[in-house]
């Protein structure tokens, strides 16, 4: 009952505010829809002259709204910004209609490994990368540079002053990462490896439990 009272009071008290919010949220939806580069909340707030807290709150609401099952679009936080895209789970249906297929970024396993080392150890030099991978060959570095997934990050202050490398914003975009902190820690991989055997036998269970959790 208490909840109902609150609900009845609310409209009159905050009708203006909520209508203004709805208006602003609509504008945010339109903005996130049109932009090609992920936009930060700060950029948006500055451009439309609204306090960043408000914009952040409304963007979070927007993200939550589109996360619902009945939406085929989602607003994703990538590379520190917000961007609209189709949900991955509908890829089969959508693929039939996509005209300009973005050329898939095919990376060899050595290239992916090198990228992983750079992502976790940045800024890192070529000798350090080769040390971890146990292989000579800086050829993949060039591939990664060409694809703008990594960039040079100054020289290291050791003998020979070797160049260091770091990952780029494009890396975050291509791998759908919000920021570098979103990467699992290396320790987690170790534990994952140990758990794998245990999990494999247990994997059937969550799939059965899922519908029950929904009901």
């Amino acid at each position, binding site marked *: 009952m208490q909840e109902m009272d609150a609900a009845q009071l609310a409209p009159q008290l905050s009708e203006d505010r909520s209508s203004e919010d709805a208006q602003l949220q609509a504008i945010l939806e339109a903005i996130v*829809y*049109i*932009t*090609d580069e992920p936009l930060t909340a700060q950029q948006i707030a500055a451009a439309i002259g609204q306090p960043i807290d408000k914009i952040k709150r409304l963007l979070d609401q927007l993200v939550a709204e589109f996360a619902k099952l009945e939406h085929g679009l989602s607003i*994703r936080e990538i590379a520190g910004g917000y*961007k*609209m*895209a*189709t*949900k*991955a*789970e509908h*890829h089969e249906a*959508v693929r039939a209609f*996509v005209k300009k297929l*973005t050329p*898939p*970024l095919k*990376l060899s*396993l*050595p290239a*992916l*490994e090198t*990228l*992983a*080392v750079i*992502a*976790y150890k940045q800024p890192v030099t070529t000798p350090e990368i080769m040390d*971890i*991978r*146990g*292989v*000579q*060959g800086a050829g993949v570095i060039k591939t990664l540079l060409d694809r703008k997934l990594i960039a040079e990050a100054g020289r290291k202050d050791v003998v020979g002053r070797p160049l260091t490398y770091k990952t780029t914003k494009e890396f975050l975009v*291509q*791998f*759908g*990462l919000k920021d570098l902190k979103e*990467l*699992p820690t*290396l320790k987690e*991989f*170790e534990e*994952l*490896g140990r758990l794998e055997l245990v999990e494999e036998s247990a994997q059937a269970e969550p799939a059965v439990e899922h519908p029950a959790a929904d009901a």
Partner: protein
Amino acid sequence: MSSPLNFHLEQYDGPLDLLLDLIRKQEINIYDIPIARITQQYLEYMQKAAEMDIELSAEFVYMAATLIHIKSRMLLPRDPELDKLLPEEDPRQELVDRLLEHERFKSAAEMLQQKRVVEEAVWSNPQIAQFRAEDDDPGLAVTLFDLVKTFQTVMERAKHRPVYEVDTEDVSVPDMIRYLRNVFDQESGPVSARDLFERQRSRRAMICLFLALLELVKLQALGLTQPDSFGEIGLKRLKGFEAAFAGGETLAAIEQGYN
């Protein structure tokens, strides 16, 4: 004892990959590697690769040597008294650390690959072009007012600047020396010689400038710089600059010479 690699010869990206595969396929405890067995399997692989003309990189050979070295260290008996004083690390430890580190990055690479798979199933259709077409170029952060105000400042500055006006018709070497003195009174850094010559409006002015430069270089008032061979020639004020103009005598002497 059969090798896990008897039936097919896989390609490995490096010796660490090969070792990890041997260990994981045989479900060996990585913290307690039977080094003799693994070394033998490793060497078998290298031999098979050689038979099949598969070229292995130098790292494979280096790793083979490392494995044999670890094996021999494990066979050597240790002095128990020395062990008490200076407990020796397991000779395998460094290799195990490297293998684990390598394996972590292999998992990280796999994780990245999975993320790519998701990204490839996601499409975006930004419509910003529709809104951009209308105003192509970003505006200037300067107004007409700024432009005029700037021009006024420049003109004001020019008015108050002591400029030695050189009459192009009967310009002389001493005129040019005075002109150069003016220029280098304000400029302590190098000045492009070409810029100076380009400022001259007549052939006579250029010749006089050239002779004036020679005089001032001789007096060590100015020095010539050329950072790259065949590069731009620059002029720089030297320590003798003040001295050359201090008394009137040197200038007077030059003036005499040209008149």
